[in-house]
């Protein structure tokens, strides 16, 4: 597997957690990019700012007959945290910015460590410093 050298990709995410398969695919792409040696920027817009919301909590699943521990249901914040840790382990950068106005209107300011608040100006900076970009839109 050839590794990207000093290359950066930017992804723009829009979907809130638990609403669409795009969230999982987007996070799969971030992970794949890190493993291939890219630095990754994520600009979370609209509902995607809730992906790293620190107050998400796992739950039991009576339909499956599982308590919370047995269900082991990952919150999206756990997946984001795992990707941030993977980036660190691989010596790569994952810069996750949540669009601030989207955060405010959704009341999700408490985001996990390793993410930060920003604005569209940050997205434009990302674009200027990236080798390529991908917008994953919501519908």
């Amino acid at each position, binding site marked *: 597997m050839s590794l990207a050298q000093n290359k950066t990709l930017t992804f723009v995410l829009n979907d809130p957690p638990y609403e669409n398969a795009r969230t999982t695919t987007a996070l799969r792409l971030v992970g794949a990019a890190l493993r291939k040696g890219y630095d990754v920027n994520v600009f979370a817009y609209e509902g995607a700012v809730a992906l790293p919301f620190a107050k998400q909590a796992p739950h039991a699943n009576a339909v499956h007959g599982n308590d919370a521990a047995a269900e082991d249901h990952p919150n999206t914040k756990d997946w984001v945290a795992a990707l941030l840790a993977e980036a660190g382990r691989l010596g790569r950068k994952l810069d996750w910015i949540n669009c601030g106005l989207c955060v405010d209107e959704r009341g999700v300011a408490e985001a996990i460590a390793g993410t930060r608040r920003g604005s569209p100006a940050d997205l434009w900076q990302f674009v200027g410093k990236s080798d*390529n970009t991908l917008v994953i839109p919501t519908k």
Partner: protein
Amino acid sequence: MSKYLLIESRDPFESQDSRAFYELAAALAGDANQVTLFLVQNGVLGARAGEHARWYAELGKAGVEVLADDFSLRERGIQASRLAPGVKASGLDVVIDHLGDGRKTLWH
């Protein structure tokens, strides 16, 4: 010549918009560009061989490479042996490779 990666995530039976996206892929290939259509999520639901298999044969004739995310296929119980002619299963990593290669990449 430019290179394009078009990612179709939507069920092609759900609306005309997906097929308009396929037509865009064909039009870009017709303009002498290198074009890959990558089916992912419910976008792979058209990849099981059936009456609509001609969509992908036509794309192939137009010069578009058609790939389908192997995880999405497996998630939906679509075996490799049941793929429409002209559709190849692929890992998601190919999207990263194409982005790194500078392909203009559109997600639908």
